[in-house]
C-alpha cells in the first residue's frame, strides 16, 4: 500500500475531512504530519527565505517531518477552490519551491484549479495514475468524500481545531459570552502558531466563534455585499464574517489574528478594521504573530482585551478608543 503523506499546514486545515478520506477509499495509507512543534518550525525557518510568512515556513517543516514516514508527499498546487477566487501567490508557488528545496523526495503536486467552477479534474486524473486505479473509481471516491465533507458541521464546541486531536479545555469561570476569532484557518487552528490562543480564550470563559460556524448562505450573502468582489477565498470569508458579526447582538468582541508579512491580510485587515470602526459598537483586537512572538506578550494583550470587555458590561465605557477615532475618522488628512 502506498503511503501518502499530507503536511499539516495550509489547506489541510480546510480539507482535513476530505483529502484523507479520498485517498483511503482508493486504497492508500495516509500519514499526517504531527502537530506543529519547535523542531518543525525551526526546520521550516531554515528551509525558507526570511521574507516568507510563518505558515509557509511551518509547511516546509511539515514536509520535512514526513520525509521518512511516507512514500510520496501530497503538496497540491492550489490555484483556486471556488469560482472567480484565488488562493494566495505563495500557496500557488509552494509546490515549485518545495520541488527545489526537497529535490530528493517524491512529491505529488497535482493542480487544483476551480476558478471556472466544476470539479478539480487534474487532481482526480493524477490521483488515478498515482494509485493505479480507474478514473471511474476515483470519481466515485471523490463524490463520496465530498458528500461527507459538505455535511460536516462546526460549532463553538467543535471547531476545526477540535477535530484535529486537540484536547479541549474547560473553564473554571462562568460563561462570559462569545468571542469571534478571525483569521486564516492555517493560523488560528494551529496551536503552536497561536500559542494555544483558542484554549486561552476558553479558559477565560469565552465561547470561540470562527467563520466556519457562520451558515454558508449568510456568509455568501454578506461577502457579496462589497463594491468589488474580493478575489481571495479566505479574504472573502473574512470580510463576509465581519459583516455578519456586526449584525449579531450577542458577540462580545472580535480578535483578528494575522501573521507578519501576510500580503493578503494587509488589505483584508484594513477593511475589517474600517467596517468595525464605522459601526463603532464591537471591540476589535488585532494580533500579529511571527516566529519571534513571545507567549507572555500574547497573554498580556488577551488579558487586557478581556478585562476591557468585562468592564464594558459594568461601567459606561466609550465604544471607540482615541486611537480608533483618529485612525478611521472623517476629519480630512492634513
Amino acid at each position, binding site marked *: 500500500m502506498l503511503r501518502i503523506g499530507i503536511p499539516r499546514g495550509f489547506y489541510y486545515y480546510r480539507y482535513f475531512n476530505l483529502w484523507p478520506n479520498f485517498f483511503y477509499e482508493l486504497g492508500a495509507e495516509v500519514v499526517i504530519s504531527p502537530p506543529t512543534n519547535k523542531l518543525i518550525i525551526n526546520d521550516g525557518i531554515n528551509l525558507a527565505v526570511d521574507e516568507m510568512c510563518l505558515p509557509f515556513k511551518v509547511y516546509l517543516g511539515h514536509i520535512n517531518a514526513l520525509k521518512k514516514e511516507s512514500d510520496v508527499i501530497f503538496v497540491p498546487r492550489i490555484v483556486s477552490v471556488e469560482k472567480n477566487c*484565488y488562493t494566495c501567490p505563495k500557496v500557488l508557488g509552494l509546490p515549485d519551491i518545495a520541488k527545489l528545496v526537497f529535490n530528493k523526495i517524491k512529491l505529488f503536486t497535482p493542480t487544483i484549479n476551480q476558478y471556472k467552477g466544476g470539479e478539480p479534474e487534474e487532481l482526480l486524473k493524477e490521483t488515478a495514475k498515482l494509485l493505479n486505479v480507474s478514473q471511474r473509481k476515483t470519481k466515485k471516491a471523490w463524490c463520496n468524500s465530498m458528500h461527507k465533507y459538505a455535511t460536516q458541521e462546526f460549532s463553538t464546541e467543535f471547531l476545526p481545531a477540535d477535530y484535529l486531536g486537540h484536547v479541549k479545555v474547560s473553564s473554571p469561570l462562568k460563561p462570559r459570552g462569545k468571542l469571534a476569532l478571525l483569521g486564516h484557518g492555517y493560523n488560528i487552528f494551529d496551536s503552536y502558531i497561536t500559542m494555544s490562543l483558542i484554549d486561552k480564550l476558553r479558559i477565560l470563559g469565552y465561547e470561540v466563534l470562527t467563520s466556519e460556524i457562520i451558515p454558508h448562505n449568510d456568509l455568501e450573502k454578506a461577502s457579496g455585499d462589497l463594491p468589488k*468582489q474580493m478575489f481571495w477565498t479566505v479574504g472573502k470569508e473574512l470580510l463576509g464574517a465581519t459583516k455578519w458579526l456586526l449584525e449579531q447582538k450577542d458577540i462580545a468582541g472580535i480578535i483578528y489574528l494575522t501573521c507578519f508579512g501576510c500580503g493578503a491580510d494587509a488589505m483584508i485587515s484594513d477593511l475589517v478594521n474600517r467596517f468595525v470602526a464605522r459601526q463603532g459598537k464591537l471591540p476589535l483586537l488585532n494580533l500579529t504573530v511571527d516566529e519571534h512572538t513571545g507567549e507572555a506578550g500574547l497573554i498580556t494583550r488577551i488579558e487586557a482585551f478581556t478585562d476591557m470587555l468585562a468592564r464594558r458590561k459594568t461601567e459606561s465605557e466609550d465604544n471607540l478608543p482615541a486611537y480608533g477615532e483618529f485612525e478611521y475618522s472623517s476629519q480630512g488628512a492634513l
Partner: protein
Amino acid sequence: MKITFPHMGNLSIVARVLFESIGQTVIVPPPITKRTLQIGSKYSPEGACLPFKINLGNFIESAELGADTIVLTGGCGPCRFGYYGEVHREILRDLGYNFEMVVLEVNEKGLRDFNEKVKFLANGASYLEIAKALRLAWHKAKALDTLEEAVQQVRACEALIGTCDKLFSSACKRIDEAKNILEINAIMETFLSKIRSTDRSLRRDIIRIAIVGEIYTILEPFASLNMEKHLGKMGVQTIRSLYLSQWANDHMFKGLLRARSSKKAIAKAVPFLSDFVGGHAMETVGSAILFSECDYDGVIQVAPLTCMPEIVAQSIIPYYASKHHLPFMTIYVDEQSGEAGLITRLEAFCDLVRQKKKSSLKESV
C-alpha cells in the same frame, strides 16, 4: 472631471497625452517626494506594500490641486494589486475626500462594466479619437523607452557624471510637450544622437547588470532609491526585465505589438516556476535566466517588502543562480529604506562581480 493617476516612472507623460487628447482635464500629481511617502505611509495599512503607500500620497497631493477623479488599473488577483483601488477608496472616504475612483480592469462583472468605465472617461470622444489618442500615447511610451535604453548603456562610461540623466530629463520634458508623432520622433532622434555622442571616460571595468523584479519598484526611481543612477556611477550598464511600453504591450495589447514582450521570459521560467502565481514572478524568474544566458555579469532583484509573488521568485532564482554561477542579490524596499544602505550593498555586489570576472578571465588565459 479632473483626472489624476499615480506616478510610475514616466507613466504620467503617457497617461496625460492619452486623456488630454480626448479632451479631458488632467492633474498630474506633483513629483514624488518624501512628503508624498510620509502622507501615504501615515494613512496606509502598515503591511501594505510601498507602491500602495506612494500611490495614496499621490492621490492626496493631487486632491490639493483640485483632482476629483482617480484612474487606476486593477486586476483580479492573486496578487493584491487588484484590490488596491478598493482599499484606497475606503481610506480616502474615511479621510473625507470625494474622489470618483475608476479602476480599469475586466472583473467578474464582465466586459460591459469595462466598456462603461471607458465611456465615462472618454467623455463623448469617438472610437476613432480614442484610437488616435492610444496611438499617440504608445509612441511617446516607445520613444521614452528607447531613450532610456540608450542612457542605461552610456551612463556607465560618461566622462562627466550626470550628463546622460540631464539629457534624458530634458528629453522627457520635450516629449511631454510634443503634439504629434513626427515631433516625438524628431525629439527622440535628436536626443538619441546627443546621448550616444556624450564624452566617454577611460574606464575599462564596465560590467553589465540586469535588474528584475516587481514592476513598480523597477520602473519608479523613487521606489528603487535611484538604483540605476547609482549603478551607472559605479560603471555599470543596466537593463531591466520590464519597460513601460512592454507593460502596455503585455497588458493592453496582449503582447501582439512589435515591441518587447514578456513571452520569452515567461517561457524560460517554466522549468523552475511552472505556472503563474500572480504579479510578475514568472517574468522575474524567466528574465534572470534570460539575462544570465545573454552573459550579463549579475542580476539584482528589487521588490517592495512583503510583495508575495516576488518572495516566490526570490525563493526560486538562487537554485538557478548557484548552478550557473550567476551573481544574484535581492533587495526589498519600504518606507524605511535608506539610500546609503542601498549604495553599500550595490558597491559590495559590484566589487564581487568584478572580482569574479577578473578571476575567470585569468582562468581562461
